[in-house]
């Protein structure tokens, strides 16, 4: 159900762009208004979501420890997997965010004749990392359209990414990687029965959207060969708040841009917010120094307890009978 709905939604988005920017000649709407709107929704929504999370306190320090604790001086602690200092936490978080450390642990459990075998399983980690790195590089590369002069790191990203002359115009490695990894992430949702069972519309929709963006991007560049000078004029205009819409940018570009706008606007309402959420995760971003340093719960409130006096009151005779000391005779 979710898969059909999501596919239909993305196809609909493509059609809207084709009709809108094509037949209806609404280039300004699709080239200027929607991108601006999407950006506003993104920034406001993103901040709103993070603020809403941050407003809930972290009452307890609950890191998931994945290594030896810091205890006796002669036992080697695991400084990163079970951090007890701020630096340890920073490194742990960096590994988590940049290299997906936890996912790297992934294993696969299999039953053979009533025996359980647990083996390594790195495909999800690899595809996930490949997708995120290529997506990041592609975004970085796109900065060349928004900047003049183009910063050196953007130039490097372009040069490095196009090192292998796969086609003319240069087909970037990350474009291929992006499509392959997103495709893998989609196919595993379809072919692994458990995963298909749990997948919702909001799992398929971003994947279709990303595929749409990737395909329309590659087509825009490789097949339709839109006028890059004109695209840059539009992009620079947007960044300088003097938007102009040059004539003759191909339709495929507007489809690409509209899908990107859709993704950007959808982002804050979706699971894609894991981008920000991972930084706030209390099982990862806290040091396991619980017994060294007291953690404060802002809403800690007094509770009803059974006091020693009440306890002795009930059991005093029995206590005295076995010679236990009592407070009141």
């Amino acid at each position, binding site marked *: 159900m979710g898969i059909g709905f999501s596919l239909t939604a993305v196809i609909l988005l493509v059609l809207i762009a084709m009709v809108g920017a094509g037949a209806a000649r609404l280039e300004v709407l699709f080239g200027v208004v929607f991108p601006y709107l999407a950006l506003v929704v993104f920034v406001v929504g993103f901040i709103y979501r993070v603020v809403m999370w941050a407003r809930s306190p972290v009452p307890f320090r609950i890191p998931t420890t994945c290594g030896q604790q810091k205890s*006796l001086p002669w036992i080697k602690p695991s400084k990163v997997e079970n951090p007890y200092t701020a630096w340890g936490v920073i490194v742990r978080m960096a590994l988590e965010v940049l290299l997906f450390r936890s996912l790297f642990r992934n294993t696969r459990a299999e039953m053979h004749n009533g025996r359980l075998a647990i083996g390594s399983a790195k495909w999800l980690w690899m595809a996930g990392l490949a997708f995120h790195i290529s997506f990041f590089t592609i975004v970085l590369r796109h900065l060349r359209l928004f900047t003049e002069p183009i910063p050196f790191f953007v130039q490097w990203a372009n040069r490095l990414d196009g090192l292998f002359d796969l086609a003319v115009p240069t087909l970037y490695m990350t474009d291929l990687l992006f499509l392959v990894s997103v495709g893998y992430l989609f196919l595993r949702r379809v072919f692994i029965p458990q995963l298909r*069972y749990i997948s919702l519309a909001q799992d398929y929709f971003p994947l279709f959207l990303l595929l749409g963006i990737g395909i329309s991007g590659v087509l825009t560049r490789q097949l339709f060969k839109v006028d890059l000078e004109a695209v840059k004029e539009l992009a620079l205009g947007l960044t300088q708040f003097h938007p102009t819409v040059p004539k003759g940018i191909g339709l495929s570009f507007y489809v690409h841009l509209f899908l990107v706008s859709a993704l950007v606007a959808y982002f804050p309402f979706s699971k894609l917010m*894991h981008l920000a959420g991972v930084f706030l995760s209390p099982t990862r971003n806290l040091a396991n120094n619980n017994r060294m340093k007291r953690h404060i719960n802002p809403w800690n409130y007094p509770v009803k307890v059974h006091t020693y006096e009440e306890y002795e009151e009930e059991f005093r005779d029995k206590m005295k009978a076995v010679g236990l*000391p009592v407070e009141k005779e």
Partner: protein
Amino acid sequence: MSLDKLPKPQELSQVDYKPPKTGWMDTPVDFRPGTYSFAAKPKALEIVGMPNPREWQPHDEDWKLPPDWKEIVIEGMRDRLEKFRSFKLFMDICVRCGACADKCHFFIGSGDPKNMPVLRAELLRSVYRQEFTRFGKLLGKLTGSRELNIDVLKEWFYYFYQCTECRRCSVYCPYGIDTAEITMMGRELLNLVGCNIDWIMSPVSNCYRTGNHLGIQPHGMVEMLEFFADDIEDITGIRIEVPFNRKGAEILFVTPSGDYFADPGTYTCMGYLMLFHELGLDYTWSTYASEGGNFGLFTSHEMMKRLNAKIYAEAKRLGVKWILGGECGHMWRVIHQYMDTMNGPADFLEEPVSPITGTKFENAKSTKMVHITEFTADLIRHGKIKLDPSRNDNLVVTFHDSCNPSRAMGLLEEPRYILRHVCNHFVDMPENTIREQTFCCGGGAGLGNDENMEMRMRGGFPRANAVRYVHEKYGVNRLACICAIDRATLPPLMEYWVPEVTVSGVHELVANALVMTGEKERTTNLRGEPLKQTEGEEDV
């Protein structure tokens, strides 16, 4: 349900992983005997003042809920979303990548897709999306959102009491989503309308009133420990004193009541007594703070705090300097991650220092409570106790990391260091099944009751499978652990899956090897089994 009523192990390990044809929202929960726990008795709830005490059972059609139960649950959810960032975040950021799926021992052992941590959480998320997000309200089922109704509540009950809060899935989650946190919230919500299980609520009410889960009254506890002193005298020829409620002692010792209540925990308890006697430790037991464990953790944060308060209160009343804690799993989750925050600061205590070695336990300088394996490992390191590991030569030992000390603390090397010094034959299980990747015993978080036996055997299967592997490969016949729940749940698990393997605490093995001043020549171990006489065996 006893073990012999279960299907044979061969049968139980034929697990079907194919998800049902119907979607998870359209597959109602089936309360099949052997796979769920019985409801709490009204008396237990009344003692601690919890809502909706009544006679009922999960398999009843009518759960006798208060008329406004739905509002109570939704309001409870709102309240907790505002109080716990973890809850709010974990409701929002899951991408359903499925990495957690086959990490859960209950999923591996049952094949039920709702035992995949992701889907367990979705049971709660579906209602969250409906009530607290716009997309959910708008698009309904398509986005995995649904109204809270009685069937959903029954599903929550079944699956949140089918999670042992072991946190194994959280190790693999790219965002650190912790199902224990989800289950804790789910159970808190269920508790608001009186849906709780007897195997948790009876210990809770017992603990509140008598100081320990098993409801042992002060004179009973004294008699039990005196009985151990008799046994120790028979084995070693040494009469030891057991100090109780003694003001002015240097150390308060707190351990789970399971240790002095039932075998094989009792041998571990004798181990503590022998070690403390040999050291001449200035310490005391308490009949009031006579429970290290805390079934409040399996009920609500508030109940956890109410039960835990006894430990600091008693330390203050007795005027001790610091606290030493026995072998227990979830107890150490509470001590390590909650106690100081909830009931501290413990500024009336001193930073713990071992009176034997002078070691400062700087890792416990705020909470002021030290784990017994930290204490004993330090003793061994400084050569302060004399050990004869050959007295454990009849054993090939492996070590089961308890969930909480490994994933909520990182107590991994201390017990292993001790084991390597008190026995000659120690091997670890495969690395994917130990340390932070350890598998649950299948009966933690209050699920270790008899009526839930089939699910325990299923959930414990991955652990048993790893034990079977080292049993067949290295002849392992003893599974050591540092958890009282393990000592209660692992013996039937072993009996079912690997009957050649017995279970014990680490300090039972310490006491076997401990050469005590003035002891007679030992002919048996603490269990009364004759010591192995052969000498010069090779290490494994």
